[in-house]
């Protein structure tokens, strides 16, 4: 039995922050009907990496991963005939999720108040960059922009350079966790009280929890933290050091005096362990740059994986920096079913990511591949909504199923 096989989700999400939320529900058995129009395709379909490096509406690994396990209903919400289909799906659903800018659902007459009239105990999650209210509610864009506005860019980079910023749409990596948790908590509440509710998720506000210590430092101590490279206030050495090979690196952290002494021994520099410039954490923090040079001089002639193994054998935190090949071949991730092979009707055999957490009693299913636009329209209209052939033909003729 799949734990969420009694949960029905109507999914208007797009890009990553939204679909990442509902993918997690689909993994554990929720029926997720995803609305998408061929006239307004999900932008994630246009973002790589692409299957065999060929852009195309089905080839995006990003889209493929975060929409696996969902049913695809083609529906053009700008067509009046589409509205009735949506309302019928709302009656069927337990949860409606959307991640448009705040105006969109209202413009279609599909805001929470309207949906509640159709289904009083519906749970609705609206997820957008800045939230449904406030002077910036109309600010639309992508997770890199919400990350910039929330402070992440300025905290990632070198003190002598412009900010580097984290990779990609960073708040899109945070929002799905809080989104899934919110939906599951609201389902639990409804189970006990019979009440549905509306959830307003500002992706920026969710993401600020990932900066809570530095926000408190600013609020409490008046300190405005900026990017400091890889320095850490609680740990030295702490950095990314060059290894043998092109763009090959090793991350090393010595959280204790003992781990520092062990590193000195491995480097064949026992004298350093007794050097007063490095003996205590305070001294090592003071002389960080010198430490970094000493370690880099040692690592640069060695393979990153070899350094990782050597240091880990004595319990020093270290890892080779993984590129895609390294991650795909990592035996540890493989042991957790990180990558799943699925048979896609258009692409053939392709690869998606699996569930990021493992449940001992009710494990995730291997999901069906992400739907092509409208791939499951017939099934949804006929089997879920019980529409007859004539009605489906009429809808198709009206263009609403595009």
């Amino acid at each position, binding site marked *: 039995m799949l734990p969420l096989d009694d949960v029905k989700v109507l999914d208007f999400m797009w890009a990553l922050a939204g679909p990442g939320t509902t993918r997690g529900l689909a993994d554990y058995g929720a029926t997720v009907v995803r609305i998408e129009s061929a006239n307004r395709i999900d*932008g994630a379909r246009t973002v790589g990496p692409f299957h*065999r490096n060929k852009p195309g509406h089905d080839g995006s690994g990003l889209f493929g*991963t975060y929409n696996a396990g969902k049913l695809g209903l083609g529906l053009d919400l700008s067509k009046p005939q589409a509205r009735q289909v949506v309302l019928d799906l709302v009656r069927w659903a337990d949860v409606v999720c959307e991640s448009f800018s705040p105006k969109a659902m209202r413009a279609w007459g599909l805001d929470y108040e309207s949906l509640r009239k159709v289904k009083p105990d519906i749970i609705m999650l609206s997820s957008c960059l800045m939230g449904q209210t406030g002077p910036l509610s109309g600010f639309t864009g992508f997770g890199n922009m919400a990350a910039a506005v929330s402070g992440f860019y300025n905290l990632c980079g070198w003190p002598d350079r412009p900010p580097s910023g984290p990779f990609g749409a960073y708040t899109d990596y945070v929002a799905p966790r809080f989104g899934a948790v919110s939906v599951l908590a609201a389902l639990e509440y409804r189970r006990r009280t019979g009440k549905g509710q509306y959830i307003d998720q500002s992706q920026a506000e969710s993401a600020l929890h*990932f900066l809570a210590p530095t926000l*408190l430092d*600013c609020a409490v101590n008046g300190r405005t933290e900026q990017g400091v490279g890889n320095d850490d206030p609680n740990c030295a050495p702490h950095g990314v050091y060059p290894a043998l090979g092109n763009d090959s690196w090793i991350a090393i952290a010595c959280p204790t005096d003992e781990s520092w002494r062990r590193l000195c021994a491995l480097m064949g520099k026992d004298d350093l362990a007794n050097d007063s410039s490095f003996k205590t954490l305070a001294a090592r923090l003071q002389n960080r740059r010198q430490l970094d040079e000493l370690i880099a001089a040692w690592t640069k002639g060695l393979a990153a994986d070899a350094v990782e193994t050597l240091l880990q054998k004595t319990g020093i935190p270290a890892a080779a920096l993984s590129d895609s090949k390294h991650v795909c071949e990592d035996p540890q991730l493989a042991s957790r079913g990180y990558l799943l092979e699925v048979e896609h009707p258009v692409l053939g055999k392709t690869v998606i990511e699996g569930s*990021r957490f493992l*449940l001992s009693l*009710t494990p995730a299913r291997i999901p069906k591949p992400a739907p092509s636009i409208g791939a499951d329209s017939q099934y949804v209209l006929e089997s879920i909504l019980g529409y007859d052939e004539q009605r489906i033909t009429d809808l198709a003729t009206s263009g609403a199923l595009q």
Partner: protein
Amino acid sequence: MIQAQEGHAPQESTSMLSPYRVLDLTTERGLLCGQILGDLGADVIKVEPPGGSPARRLAPFYEDLPDPNRSLYWWAYNRNKRSITLNLETDEGRELLRQLATRSHFLIESFNPGYLRDRQLGYENLSAINPGLIYVSITPFGQQGPKATYADSDLVILAAGGPLLLCGDEDRAPVRVCVPQAYLHASGDAAAGALVANHARARSGIGQHVDVAAQQSVTLATQANNLAYRLGADDARRMAGGARVGSQRVPLVWRAQDGYVTSIFLFGPQLGVFTQRLMNYLHEIGACDAATRDKDWIAYGALLAGGQEPMAEYERVVGLIAGFFASRTKADLFKAALERGLLIAPITTVDEVLASPQLDSRKYWQTLNHPELGRSFRYPGPFARFSESPITYRRRPPLIGEHNREILSRELGLSDEKIADLSRRGVV
């Protein structure tokens, strides 16, 4: 099967998880998971070793004074929790934990794999006395596998999971966000896993073990780039203020008059529309000519790739845009973005985040009173707004063992003499 039906702490009101009790045994990693459940209304008991959690030793500190009750790292992830100290190295401490576990619905822990099992407190041990228990383990690499016992840190996890190599300037070492992120990603996955298991338990009465690996959790922060090798696609590579994919360079950070902004200058049916709007604007204010404005911004990427448009011309346009951004303030550019639907956002400093009119207008910040310091402090607010059962900040982060007496006497029914004796012998 769910045994903890009675005897839990009084709740202020019915909230999403108010019937549930959580034992939070996490070390300095994974503290956010219990806080999420606490924010949702669960009664979260933070179980700390005598002397306090190792997280309390982490900087920054209130007024920069290192003290276990002043760690802002601790404050950030322990509100809405009570604290009890228990020495799990003693038989009596373990027995008290077992008693608490029979009265709890969730247990969250982040010890190295096997640590609790060796102390007869593993999932098998505790599920035998409370089959309804949901036991959540947050570890660096997972419970099993060839690297399960590897030592870790935030940086090491980010390296092993993929995101670190993608961040930073191409002529320097990759660089992380300087606020530790890895266990926050893992905590979010752990909370989601716990609530999926909770949904299953509502029907079956049976709990289970949730196994979260921080390495796998941070893979989400590569935006599926991790799949590139298996898909046969180009890997994304790091680039100062942007990213490189194949031969394509995507600049995302631009200098403004008073700092930096992020903006996306890309093409195609989706993003080209935004670029067209930007070029219309530039033309309107005289920053580019009509011919530049009227380039085919939808097809522009293909034109560049096919050689119909020379790279030098692309670079000239990038120069025009850079010049325009550099002549305006972040606020001016953001205003234009809002008015015209452009993809521009200010790169905001932490103090600017605290002063955000948007967050003010949504009354985001929450104040928690710290009576022990005679002051109130401003905390990041609810991660989402719930119309029926809003998140409330009921408790400031606890002092070490602040609720020992309350929990031992009220929840476990121990006498004052017994508690004093346990305390004397270092069990609590």
